[in-house]
């Protein structure tokens, strides 16, 4: 007998253009209140291969809290605090100009599979009409040059220009800017998860 091949996976399909009334009815773009003392703004524009804004995308983020703890049972580092009300999850549809925005806190460091610290980062999934499956990327922080230079995931991207697309830029208003380019020149680095 051949070994059981297991059950086949359910394939992905596009989120389509008409998800807003279901998926983004509630505002999940504020992971912390606007008046949170450590609140940071992360904003950006999603653009396609023609450099046109993508007005029907949905950006999701997943991150640890400021102490580096995930609000999930598999993060068993119980000596690190959890923050009441902070789920670590955010979701924001892009507007007519392709823009999205999150208000959150900068995540603390979390370990890589070898126990070494990863640079602070936020996992990102992008869904849109025309994307048959989500695109996954990460946001890294511009004030973490040393940690970024040592980060095993970031440094696994061989091409320096491609790697640089994952580091957010500071904006004049003190916000962090992270554009997502789906295709073409300056394409964002995407991951196979």
């Amino acid at each position, binding site marked *: 007998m051949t070994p059981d091949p*297991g*059950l*086949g*996976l*359910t394939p*992905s*399909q*596009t*989120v*389509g*253009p*008409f998800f*807003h*009334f*279901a*998926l983004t*009815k509630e505002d999940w773009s504020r992971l912390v209140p606007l008046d949170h003392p450590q609140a940071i703004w992360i904003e950006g524009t999603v653009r396609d*291969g*023609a450099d046109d804004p993508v007005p029907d995308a949905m950006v999701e983020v*997943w991150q640890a809290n400021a102490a580096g703890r995930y609000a*999930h049972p*598999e*993060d068993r*580092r119980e*000596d*690190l605090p959890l923050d009441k009300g902070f*789920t*670590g*999850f955010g979701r924001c549809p892009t507007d007519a100009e392709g823009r999205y925005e999150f208000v959150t806190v900068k995540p603390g*460091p979390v*370990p*890589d*599979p*070898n*126990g070494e*610290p*990863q640079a602070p980062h936020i996992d990102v*999934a992008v*869904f*849109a009409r*025309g*994307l*048959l*499956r989500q*695109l*996954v990327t990460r946001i890294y922080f511009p004030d973490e040059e040393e940690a970024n230079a040592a980060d*095993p*995931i970031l*440094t*696994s991207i061989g091409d320096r220009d*491609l790697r640089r697309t994952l580091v957010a830029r500071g904006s004049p208003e003190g916000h962090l800017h992270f554009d997502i380019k*789906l*295709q073409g020149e300056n*394409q*964002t*680095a*995407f*991951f*196979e*998860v």
Partner: protein
Amino acid sequence: MAWQRSSRVAGYRRDDAEAHPPYLHPDYKGTRLRAPERPLTILPHTLSEITGPVYGPGQMGPLDHDLTRQHGGEPLGERIIVHGRVTDDDGRPVRNSLIEIWQANAAGRYVHQGDRHPAPLDPNFSGAGRCITDEEGHYRFVTVKPGAYPWGNHPNAWRPAHIHFSLFGPAFATRLVTQMYFPGDPLFGQDPIFQSVRDPQARERLISSFDLDATEPEWALAYRFDIVLRGREATPMKRTPK
């Protein structure tokens, strides 16, 4: 230091390359300017990818799963029960996990300002629902069968009737957005979204089955749609990305 403890993690199995559609499927026009061109970088599963958002039954409203009872009256259309089981590919139940669905009404029209299909809206139907899987991974929705609708992909293009599904599963690495179709739909052959899944067996897994046993006599027909998310690596992994 505290962050170093319990860092050894078991990741999720990498997907079979044929299970999911490619990003670029030129027959589906929307992919042409949106599919990335540069090869994807393999992301080892760290604590960031084996964790994910947690939502529980406490966050659900009592009628969130019943799309036919969200307004003053009953929606028009064929009332159906859509149910199934969410497991990983080892057959283990995916428990206590959020499922969100959305769909067009029985006439093929979405409650969405971007939907310009000249079919009637139904004041008694929004078409959005959600629920949490139970301890065995089961879920159940009550809704009406959505209509097919035209779209601009190619001349006389029509989407087969479908219900959109969004699932978190246990981790960021198990996130899945998909569409459930109905058996025997004559529109499958010309639909590039359905056809974007290259493996015919994988494509079949997007089609629900008529489920006579789950129908409610003199009230509703039923369709079953089981969903399989990726399973867990057997052993904790220790690897350094190249």
